[in-house]
């Protein structure tokens, strides 16, 4: 319950103005970079090539977004289904194991997952996709379990006593009430995946991490800055978008749960 309260008090933090600004800045940087030669030449006078032009930044951004969308979708679907399965009689036995796994996600570094995936499937997009999908599952799984646990037991008791079937209880009571915490977990998962996808460039995936890695290995600090700004802006934009979604989806429900305690 306290987690839910904390979440709902965080939710109305930003307005939509910030989201518009953030999207604007992201697109400006992605599509305006080729024209920014004079600016970066002035900022980094020692560098011969102060603007990353090996690949169009916009194309890298869309590939980055594509990789995150695909891996997060896989992660969200699998983790949510696994979490919901614990409400069923046969799934209940797996709940402790899932809780341990979800807890591991807090400590396990994403680089380690990437490093394990490469020897298994080779370099390229695939190890990145596998690592991001696995790593993205853990926050969602934890949030799904926490969301289901946040449903007050008198509410569940009344649902049963009024003659709702287990399926009706799941879809009409447990899922809607778990939604705010679940969404918070999806948000964490996606935002973290945006950052991790940058590291995936090290195993051969084309993402916004590429300018950073090339910049680091070639001592080109301008490349590093450009890549880092893109990744940062993308993460902030995604976070703001989830904020909007959270407010839009469940204003009344979140505050309602608090009062039932």
């Amino acid at each position, binding site marked *: 319950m306290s987690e839910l309260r904390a979440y709902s008090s965080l939710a109305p933090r930003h307005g939509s103005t910030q989201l518009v600004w953030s999207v604007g800045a992201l697109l400006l940087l992605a599509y305006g970079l080729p024209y920014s030669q004079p600016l970066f030449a002035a900022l980094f006078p020692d560098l011969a090539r102060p603007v990353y032009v090996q690949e169009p930044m916009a194309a890298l951004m869309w590939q980055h977004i594509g990789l995150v969308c695909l891996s997060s979708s896989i992660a969200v679907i699998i983790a949510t289904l696994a979490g919901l399965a614990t409400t069923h009689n046969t799934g209940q036995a797996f709940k402790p194991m899932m809780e341990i796994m979800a807890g591991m996600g807090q400590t396990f570094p994403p680089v380690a997952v990437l490093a394990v995936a490469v020897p298994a499937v080779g370099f390229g997009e695939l190890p990145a996709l596998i690592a991001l999908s696995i790593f993205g599952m853990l926050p969602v799984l934890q949030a799904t379990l926490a969301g289901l646990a946040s449903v*007050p037991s*008198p*509410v*569940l*008791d*009344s*649902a*049963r*006593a*009024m*003659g*709702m*079937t287990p399926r*009706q209880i799941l879809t009409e*009571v447990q899922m*809607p*009430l778990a939604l705010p915490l679940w969404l918070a977990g999806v948000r964490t998962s996606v935002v973290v995946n945006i950052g991790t996808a940058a590291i995936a460039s090290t195993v051969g995936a084309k993402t916004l991490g590429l300018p950073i890695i090339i910049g680091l290995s070639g001592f080109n600090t301008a490349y590093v800055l450009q890549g880092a700004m893109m990744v940062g802006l993308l993460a902030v934009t995604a976070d703001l978008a989830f904020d909007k979604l959270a407010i839009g989806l*469940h204003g*009344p*429900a979140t*505050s*309602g*749960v*608090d*009062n*039932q305690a």
Partner: protein
Amino acid sequence: MIIKFENTRKSYGGDAAIADFNLEIQKGELLVLLGPSGSGKSTVLKMVNRMVNHDEGQIFFHDQEINRYNLQDLRRRMGYAIQSVGLFPHRTVAQNIATVPKLLGWDTQSVQARVNELLTLLAMDPKQYAARYPHQLSGGQQQRIGVARALAADPDVLLMDEPFGALDPVTRSSLQVTLKQIQQSTGKTILFVTHDIDEALLLATRIVLLNQGRIVQVGTPHQLLQQPANDFVVNFLGRADLGLQQLSLRSIEPYVKAIEGTPPQHVIAHSVSLREAISRMATLHVSALSVVKEDGTLLGQVRAADLLENNHV
């Protein structure tokens, strides 16, 4: 007979929570299950709608063993209200009340008409409250909605587990009055669990006093007070207050006398109990009160000396 327990038993890990339980409940009764904590009164209630399954013996609902009903069908025929209310926080007042009618497949119009009817019955203005969410209501209002939700599909039986236990005394007493009126006007069969003796004496048509999972005495409030089966009954009902408890069951109406001379300065409603009238006299330091009807007309007076004499019973 609507519900019948036959040698029902329920144990938790070898310890019997309920044993040798035999009881017949008639249609239209407001049966109060009364007892100290751990006496098994809630367990008895929950066995009726199979929130708790009985281990031995049989429980009949309309002459059929409850295990032979489809679980959901059985529960949809019984209203259920609990102390923590358990309203759905993500649904409006109207949607909460509509839960069981919707499960039973009523059409939208009937559902809405029923919601308005119930809100009115429980003294909540439908226009003002139907669209609100539970967290926008006070504790007392939430419990009114809880009772309305339990009544929604016009169930054969209402199961109530200490429904007013968490409310302040003023709200509790107003809900007790509302419940009693509803029971009298609809003739609904109600099983009501409480550990509050005053509540039991006020509401019950019959009381089942439980201790350690067994029935100690079954009877009307009068019978329990006047012919207690044993010391447990006497102690539980409160030895010292026994006289006052009995007074609380009697109205002052038979004691109202015509006024000669100036009417007493302080007034009291004609519907109150002897206990209230005497308590009022004690607080006001007077020995007589004017009795008025709801509309304010003077009916007469009551005097302390008359109230304490037993010749009217």
